[in-house]
C-alpha cells in the first residue's frame, strides 16, 4: 500500500507572470487532489489559468516571466516543488506525461515520429535504440495507428492531425505514467476525430489505469471523461465537485452560467436566446477586488467586491464552492430561478 491518499495533491499553488506591462496572477492559490486512476476535468475559459496549473505541476513554467511563488505539489506523497531539476526530469515523461492541444506544432518537424517517441523510452527505460523502436511500434499499434512499422519512419508533416495526436498519446503513454495531463487534447480536431481520440483515451485509461487531468473548455468532453470537475475563473478555483454534482446542481453562478450558455444538441429550441454571462473576462493585469467574478455576477452582494470568498467545502462531501452567496445562504437552486 502506498503511504499517500492522493496521487496528486496540490495545495495553494500560486503561479504569477511578471511581464513588462505588469503582473498576471495566472494561478492564485489553487488546490486540487486526484486519486490514482481518477480523472479530473479542469474547465474554464481562455486565460482562466487551467493550462498554467497543469504546466506548473510539470514544473514547465518558463521562468522568467513566470514563477511558481508558493504552494506545494505532492505527487505520490513527495513535494515536486522541492525536487532538484534532475529528479524532476525523471518524473517528466516517466511518471507524469503530458499531451498538448496543437498536434500540428507539438511534434518537431525535423525528426521522424519514431525517433521522437523512442527518445522518451530510451531516456526513462534505458532500452537500446532498436528495442525502443520495437516498443514504439507496439505503442503505435496500441493507439490505433495503422501500418505502425512504416509510420515510425514518417515525419510529422506526413501525418494527419488525428494521427499526430495519436502519436502524442503514444509518446505520453510509452513509459506507463501514473498521471497523464491532457491539455485541450481534442480542441484542434474535427468532431468525428475528436470522438475517436476520446474513445481511445477512455479505452487506454481502462487498460492502463492512470489518473488523468483533463484540461478543456469543452463541457461535453469533461462530462464524458471526468469523475471530478474543477471550474476555474480568472486564476481562481470557483467550484470543485463531482461531475454529476456540477452538471446537475451547479453552485457557483459562473459554473451555472457556463453550463447554460452553451448551445446544446439535447435541449433548447431554435431561435431561443441562450442564457448569458454578461460582460467580459477581466483584464489579467488588473483583476477586480474581492470575488473576481463579481462584475459579471447577477447575484452580486455588497461584500463581493470587498472580500474574496474562500473556497468552502460542503460538509460530508468532496464538494467546495468559492461564493459569498453560497457561504451566506447555503445551497442554491439556480435551475428553478431560470435566469442569471
Amino acid at each position, binding site marked *: 500500500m502506498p503511504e499517500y491518499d492522493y496521487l496528486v495533491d496540490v495545495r495553494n499553488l500560486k503561479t504569477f507572470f511578471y511581464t513588462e506591462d505588469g503582473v498576471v496572477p495566472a494561478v492564485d492559490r489553487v488546490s486540487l487532489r486526484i486519486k490514482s486512476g481518477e480523472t479530473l476535468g479542469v474547465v474554464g*475559459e481562455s486565460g482562466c489559468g487551467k493550462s498554467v496549473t497543469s504546466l506548473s505541476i510539470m514544473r514547465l513554467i518558463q521562468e522568467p516571466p513566470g514563477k511558481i511563488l508558493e504552494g506545494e505539489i505532492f505527487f505520490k506523497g513527495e513535494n515536486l516543488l522541492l525536487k532538484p531539476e534532475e529528479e524532476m526530469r525523471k518524473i517528466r515523461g516517466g511518471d507524469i506525461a503530458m499531451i498538448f492541444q496543437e498536434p500540428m506544432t507539438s511534434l518537431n518537424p525535423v525528426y521522424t515520429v519514431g525517433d521522437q517517441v523512442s527518445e522518451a523510452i530510451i531516456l526513462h527505460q534505458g532500452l537500446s535504440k532498436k528495442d525502443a523502436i520495437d516498443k514504439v511500434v507496439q505503442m503505435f499499434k496500441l493507439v490505433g495507428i495503422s501500418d505502425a512499422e512504416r509510420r515510425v519512419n514518417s515525419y510529422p508533416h506526413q501525418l494527419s492531425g488525428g494521427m499526430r495526436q495519436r502519436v502524442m498519446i503514444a509518446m505520453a503513454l510509452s513509459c506507463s505514467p501514473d498521471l497523464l495531463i491532457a491539455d485541450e487534447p481534442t480542441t484542434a480536431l474535427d468532431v468525428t476525430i475528436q*470522438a475517436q481520440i476520446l474513445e481511445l483515451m477512455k479505452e487506454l485509461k481502462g487498460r492502463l489505469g492512470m489518473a488523468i487531468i483533463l484540461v478543456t473548455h469543452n463541457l461535453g468532453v469533461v*462530462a464524458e471523461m471526468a469523475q471530478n470537475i474543477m471550474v476555474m475563473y480568472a486564476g481562481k478555483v470557483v467550484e470543485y465537485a463531482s461531475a454529476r454534482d456540477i452538471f446537475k446542481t451547479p453552485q457557483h453562478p459562473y459554473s451555472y452560467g457556463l453550463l447554460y*450558455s*452553451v*448551445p446544446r*444538441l439535447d435541449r433548447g429550441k431554435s431561435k431561443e436566446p441562450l442564457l448569458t454571462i454578461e460582460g467580459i473576462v477581466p483584464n489579467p493585469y488588473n483583476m477586480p477586488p474581492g470575488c473576481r467574478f463579481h462584475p459579471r455576477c447577477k447575484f452580486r452582494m455588497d461584500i463581493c467586491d470587498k472580500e474574496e470568498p474562500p473556497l468552502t467545502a460542503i460538509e460530508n462531501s468532496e464538494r467546495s464552492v468559492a461564493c459569498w452567496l453560497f457561504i451566506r445562504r447555503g445551497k442554491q437552486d439556480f435551475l428553478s430561478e431560470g435566469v442569471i
Partner: protein
Amino acid sequence: MAKDEVLVEVKNLFKYFPISGGVFGRTVANVKAVDGVSFIIRKGEALGLVGESGSGKTTVGRTLLRLIEPTKGKITYDGVDITTISRAKLRPMRKHMQIIFQDPFGSLNPRMTVGEMLGEPMEIHGVAHGRDKDHRIQDLLELVGLRGEHARRYPHEFSGGQRQRVGIARALALNPAFIVADEPVSALDVSIQAQIINLLIDLQSRLNLTFLFIAHDLGVVKRMCDTVAVMYLGNIMEHAENTKLFGQPLHPYTQALLSAVPIPDPDIKRERIILRGDIPSPVNPPPGCKFHTRCQNFISGLCDVKIPELREVRPLHLVACHLV
C-alpha cells in the same frame, strides 16, 4: 413576410483550386473544395452549413459573395445571376449581401477607427454623408450592443467579443438583406459566444435578415438556424429543416456527426458511432459516394461506384445516400 420566396439559389456550384507542381509547374491536381453543390435559401431563413475541415463550407460562403470566383455553376440572388455579371455591375449589388468573419482579430483593419470602418461602406455606396453618416454609425453601434463613443476607438482597444460586434455592425452598415456568417462565434470563449449568438438571433428577427450560417459546432447551428445542410468533402450530404435534421437524421454521416458531439450531461449515455479513419483529402476524394470509405452501411459495387444524388426523400428533407 413571404416565407416561401427564394432569395438565394445555388445550382451545381464547383470550385477547384489548382495545385501546381512537377518540372514545369503545371497544374497537377485540384483541391476539389466545392464539388457540385445546389441549394436554396428562402427570404428570412437562416440556413446552417455544417461540416468538418475540408468540407468546403467556407468556400461556398465566399463564392456566394463572389469573393472567390466559382469554377462552374450558377448563383442567383433575388433573381439576378451574379456569376456572370461584370465586377462593375456586381459592386452595387454588394449593398445587399454582406459577410461576418470568424477571426475577431484579423477581420478589423488595425489602422482604422471603428467609426471609419463603419462609415466606409456608406461612403462607397453613397448611402450617407456627414452628420447623417455619424448618426447611422451611432445607431449601428447601439444596435450591436456597443456605445456611440466607441466610434473613435481602434480595434486593439476592444476584447474579442466586442470586436465581433464591430464586425457585425460593419456587415449591417448597408442594411443588407442577406448575410454570410462564416464561423462567427467559433473563435470566442463560451460565455462570449452566447452573447453573440443571442445578438444574431435578435438581429435576424428584428431586421428580417436572411443568413447563410457556416459553422462546425452543431449546437450553435441548432440554436441559430431554420434549415441545415451538412457538407462532406465538397458535397451536401443532407439538407433538411432544423428539427428534422437534428431529430431524425437520415444520412449515415449526419448520424455519426451528431453522435460524435459530446453532451455536457454525465447521465446521458448514447450509442456513439465512431467513424473509422481520417477525412480523405479533397485533392483525391473517393469515387462514388465520398463518404463510403468511412460508412458502416457501405455496399460494395454501389456506393464506391455511383455518386448518390441529393433527393427529396421526405418533404423538405433531402439526402444524398443510396440506402435511404
